[in-house]
């Protein structure tokens, strides 16, 4: 049975999205069974088309935010995290689940989210899927 890893993403700034996408895709390449659970800001960033305007940088990086935005310019690098997740799904076992509590709170429906999101689930879904695996919280 494949090793499991679960990543809880609660922050929607571009730097955290990149960290989550890199860890999730790396785990998928290493043939782990990967769960990416999106909640709060981490879920809001997956609203359809949100990536086009999202240039939020987390407070940890505020001293170098301009440098980071500069580094992300050109090509489609603003959404590199999203294309990385799509690639991870193509080559491995990555399940992306949206938190139902956040969906309710903000009146978001499954169809409002990027198609890369597989399903909507609650806390029991998270624990059931994450069972016995390592967890990373972002």
């Amino acid at each position, binding site marked *: 049975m494949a090793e499991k890893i679960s990543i809880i993403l609660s922050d929607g700034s571009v730097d955290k999205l990149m960290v989550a996408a*890199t860890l999730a*895709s*790396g785990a*998928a*390449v*290493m*043939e782990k069974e990967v769960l990416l659970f999106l909640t709060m800001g981490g879920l809001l960033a997956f609203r359809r088309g949100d990536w086009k305007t999202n240039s939020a940088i987390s407070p940890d990086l505020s001293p170098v935010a301009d440098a980071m935005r500069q580094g992300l310019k050109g090509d489609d690098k603003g959404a590199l995290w999203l294309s*990385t997740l799509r*690639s*991870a799904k*193509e*080559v*491995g076992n990555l399940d992306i689940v949206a938190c139902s509590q956040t969906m309710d709170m903000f009146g978001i429906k499954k169809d409002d989210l990027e198609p890369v999101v597989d399903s909507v689930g609650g806390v029991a879904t998270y624990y059931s899927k994450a069972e016995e695996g390592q967890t990373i919280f972002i």
Partner: protein
Amino acid sequence: MPAVDLSTLSPEKTVDARGMACPGPLLEAKRAIPGVKVKSILEVTSSDIGTLEDIPLWCKKVGHDYMGNIEEAGYWRVFVRRGK
């Protein structure tokens, strides 16, 4: 000195991942490996130095043979023999 002279290898497939940051080259390698026959060679070109650590670890984890790399101007040619 590697046991095999890498410059004499004939890869069945080459993927160009130059210009991609981590995890791009690793994803490209994973995507390409089913396209070569078992025991045949995949070459990945990468300008990301992390690839030189990541590809061998990936090979070890999932059962391919990392054969080594050749440094070129600003990038590396990384060789993997498909193991399974």
